[in-house]
């Protein structure tokens, strides 16, 4: 823990990002080694690194098991309008007053990676694509859940329009609040996976990820990034804000 309290030297922005990533890893490591020391202290296995590595490799094993369990056809349960949770809980890695401000007129969704057509998309253009709306349950990794209605463009439709290589492994997302995350391609192509523009009967409000978020009812809440400003297709695992700190990458439900 004391390592993280040393005064940092002056660094270039790119180096700072690396340091932040390293600190995230250390966060997981120090947390895990506390438990490891408590439990394995008597077993001459006092190196938290070994336990940490084992847990990370078990998490990768769980990614594979979940990918195998996942069905691209099985739909998440849907609910009626009367079952919607009201008020719907606000949730982010920051407080409500830090929700990013976005100029809707100037907003563009950037597209990059393994796609044929990389021109940016306005909100109006996204609304002209076929839409879908589902009332589904959002399950947070913390354990709570809430039912809401999200409407928008099926991600599969969007990926087809931009000529994405759907044999690639991942679809990554970058957000206006510096959040980032990714989906595996089979989940991205699931019929209920949406680029959501609407929440209930209205356009996505700021607190719920305006102007565009991912809504994927077959994943835990943190795999539903909000305020997305860039989408890219890749064969390299793009990582994510929580994934890089130790949350399981697949996190299917």
């Amino acid at each position, binding site marked *: 823990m004391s390592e993280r309290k040393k005064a940092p030297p002056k660094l270039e922005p790119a180096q700072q990002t690396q340091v932040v990533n390293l600190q995230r890893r250390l*966060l*997981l490591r*120090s*947390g*895990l*080694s*506390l*438990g490891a020391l*408590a*439990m394995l202290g008597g077993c001459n296995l006092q190196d938290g690194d070994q336990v940490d590595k*084992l*847990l*990370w490799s*078990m*998490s990768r*094993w*769980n990614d594979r098991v979940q990918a195998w*369990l*996942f*069905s691209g056809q*099985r739909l*998440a*349960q849907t609910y009626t309008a009367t079952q919607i949770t009201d008020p719907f809980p606000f949730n982010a890695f920051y407080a409500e007053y830090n929700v990013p401000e976005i100029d809707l007129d100037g907003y563009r969704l950037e597209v990059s990676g393994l796609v044929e057509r990389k021109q940016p998309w306005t909100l109006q253009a996204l609304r002209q694509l076929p839409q879908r709306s589902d009332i589904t*349950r959002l*399950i*947070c*990794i*913390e*354990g*709570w*859940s809430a039912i809401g209605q999200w409407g928008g463009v099926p991600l599969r439709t969007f990926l087809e329009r931009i000529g994405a290589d759907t044999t690639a492994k991942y679809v990554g997302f970058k957000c206006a609040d510096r959040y980032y995350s990714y989906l595996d391609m089979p989940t991205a192509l699931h019929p209920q996976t949406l680029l959501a523009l609407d929440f209930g009967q209205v356009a996505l409000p700021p607190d719920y990820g305006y102007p565009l978020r991912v809504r994927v*009812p*077959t994943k835990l809440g943190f795999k539903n990034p909000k305020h997305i400003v860039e989408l890219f297709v890749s064969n390299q695992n793009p990582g994510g804000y*929580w994934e890089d*700190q*130790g*949350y*399981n990458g697949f996190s*299917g*439900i």
Partner: protein
Amino acid sequence: MSTRRIHAWPVRLTHWLNAFGMFCMISSGWGIYNASPLFAFHFPTWSTLGGWLGGSIAWHLAVMWLLVINALAYLLYGALSRHFARDLLPLSVSAVRRDLFAALRLKLQHRLGHYNAVQRLSYWLVLALGVLVVLSGLAIWKPVQLHGLASLFGGFDIARYVHFFAMAGIAAFIVLHLTLVLLVPSTLPPMITGGRRETSHE
């Protein structure tokens, strides 16, 4: 019969792996519980494993494999070796009542290598709770892919309560189990060495 050990090696091996697995699952589970408590209490941080929610989940979803594979090995052994039939059966209401009253009056003698009816009942109950905790855990882990199982528990939210109470039942068993070991410490070495059966009683 005179050479038969009190605890065969597969029972001892799975017992200690299970003890390690249960310790990890319960303490990491308490860490996960604390992120969104079902009731008006938290588990103290010192009693949780993982350091933070991500660490607790990493432990929970790693050790679950050890616990389940170990449990399947034990159940398979117990059925095929006739360990269940020989050591945990027969079991009758009248025998449980008789042994329970004797135990409450502190008149129940412990014979090494022989389970009384209350012990047999508690082992069957904890095995049932083990099945319940695994099934409700699967329902929480995969409420969409294993939708039928989640529905069986009344949905995701109720499955969390089932999982919690199954844990609480298992924890109560562990408290009882350890109390009995403290009261009759001679039961501990046979779970390590295998022990030797008292043939004079047979």
